[in-house]
């Protein structure tokens, strides 16, 4: 049974972050420059954030717990992101040129989740999936899971060996929990996100990893909350929602709700003050808004889903 105080806080937190994201994009922030070509010079500037926006919006639509205003905002954000990527043409051209690059595939997965399709890209990805080269690229374990989950979302025929992929991650080794680093913590959150498809399948997480997170997630959340790593703390709360019955309680939600501003912005961390320049503030804190939307949404959806299942 999840604490109703946590649910109310999570709901408010996520929906305010969604409002903030929606307002920013409505006002033209985060656009891809008109002269953009497939060889993106600065992919982290607009391209990657659009993918993250699509991720958050598509999960909100998938879960259907956002209410009419939230659902409408999510739909508009997805339409906007799809249009920015030229209805998928940008993804298609980038993937056509770079066979083993995974970011077009990963971005497309989030649109596919919400029914935005690009038939030529579907064919291209299916063809690439048959190449040994596509599976031979040398990357981190959690990144392999990202690709596997994208293929699953798009419905490609390649069937990954999930157990082998999981064994190749940090979490798969059940390491000493005190040896985690900031960067590793982000990798771990993504291992959980991809294995469960962002909370849709908690059972996708092997039992030993679930037990491991049950034991140590509270300690990780505590130490990163203490030093004001808000973005990472929100991701850890999302993990808590994705693994089934949340374990960390009110601590994180109360702390994060307290740092969220009235307009919905959640500061990335406590180190740097939020810029007075709106564009800069958007650029630096949009990732935290995305994870805030997801954490609130998944927490609510899992709790309501569990209640529905129990009823």
């Amino acid at each position, binding site marked *: 049974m999840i604490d109703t105080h946590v649910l109310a806080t999570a709901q408010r937190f996520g929906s305010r972050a969604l409002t903030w994201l929606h307002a920013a994009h409505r006002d033209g922030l985060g656009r891809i420059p008109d002269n953009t070509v497939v060889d993106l010079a600065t992919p982290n500037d607009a391209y990657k954030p659009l993918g993250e926006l699509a991720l958050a919006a598509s999960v909100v639509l998938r879960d259907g717990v956002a209410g009419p205003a939230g659902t409408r905002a999510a739909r508009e954000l997805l339409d906007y992101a799809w249009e920015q990527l030229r209805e998928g043409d940008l993804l298609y051209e980038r993937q056509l040129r770079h066979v083993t690059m995974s970011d077009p595939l990963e971005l497309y997965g989030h649109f596919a989740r919400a029914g935005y399709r690009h038939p030529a890209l579907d064919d291209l990805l299916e063809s690439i999936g048959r190449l040994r080269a596509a599976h031979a690229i040398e990357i981190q374990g959690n990144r392999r899971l990202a690709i596997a989950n994208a293929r699953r979302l798009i419905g490609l025929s390649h069937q990954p060996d999930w157990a082998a992929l999981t064994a190749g991650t940090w979490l798969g080794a059940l390491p*000493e*929990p*005190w040896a*985690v680093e900031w960067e590793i913590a982000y990798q771990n959150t993504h291992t959980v996100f991809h294995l469960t498809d962002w909370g849709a399948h908690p059972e996708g997480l092997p039992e030993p990893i679930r037990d491991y997170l049950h*034991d*140590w997630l*509270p*300690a*990780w959340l*505590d*130490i990163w909350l*203490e030093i004001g790593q808000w973005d990472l703390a929100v991701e850890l709360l999302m993990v808590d929602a994705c693994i089934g019955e949340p374990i960390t309680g009110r*601590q994180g939600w109360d702390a994060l709700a307290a740092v969220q501003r009235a307009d919905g912005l959640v500061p990335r961390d406590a180190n740097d003050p939020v810029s007075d320049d709106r564009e800069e503030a958007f650029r630096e804190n949009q990732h935290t808004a995305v994870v805030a939307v997801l954490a609130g949404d998944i927490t609510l959806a899992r709790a309501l889903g569990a209640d529905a299942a129990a009823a």
Partner: protein
Amino acid sequence: MPFAETSLREQYAAAVERVAGRTLDALRGGGDPAALVEPDAAVPRPLLAAVRLLGADLLAPSLFGGGEPDPATAALLAEARRVVPAPAPPSEQAALVIAWQDWAAGRLLVRAGHAEAAPRPAPLPGPEDLGWQAWSVRMSQLSVLALPTLDGPVHDAALAHALALARGTVRSMLRRDLTTAARLARWLAWTEAEGRRSRLDLEPVLDRIALAGDGSARTGLELALARRLLDRARPSDAEGGRAA
């Protein structure tokens, strides 16, 4: 006189290192802590304060040896408790911690014929009241209770909330407060000696603290006691000659 206070603290801390180091030696089979004191020589006051401060841990070597508290060491501890002014804690919580530390020493001294049985201090709040974080810090301050043959409500709480102790250990390790982590790891080793398998693998924790910790004899003593407790938890492993 701030200078005098600083120097008093330094004197005490240095004496604690001496006494802890001596206790470590005793634990490894090298005589008893009372050998710090030369027969018929005046015992320096900081040394007595250190004896008072380390309390029940002074008697740990004889407890791990399977026997009753060493008589000479018990006499020294009893004398320190008689002579050294009672500690003046800054808060009620600290007073309660000290009361429990003194309870542990008192229990062992009763067995050595040096003290009257003292009443149990008031119970400590649990993790459900304090949160597992603050509770585990409180338990780290009570690590002197984690000794063989001692038992009571604090020990019951340690067994009942072993996962909170393990989370507290990981939390302190990650905050790079390895002194607190060592004391919590000792509690976890105690729960293992009581037959509970810890959720946290303790050997690497103890190794890590030994390598990256403050290097003090006081922390070294916590680690050595933790290892001895682990040896009791897994007698078959102890054959491998694990260093105490």
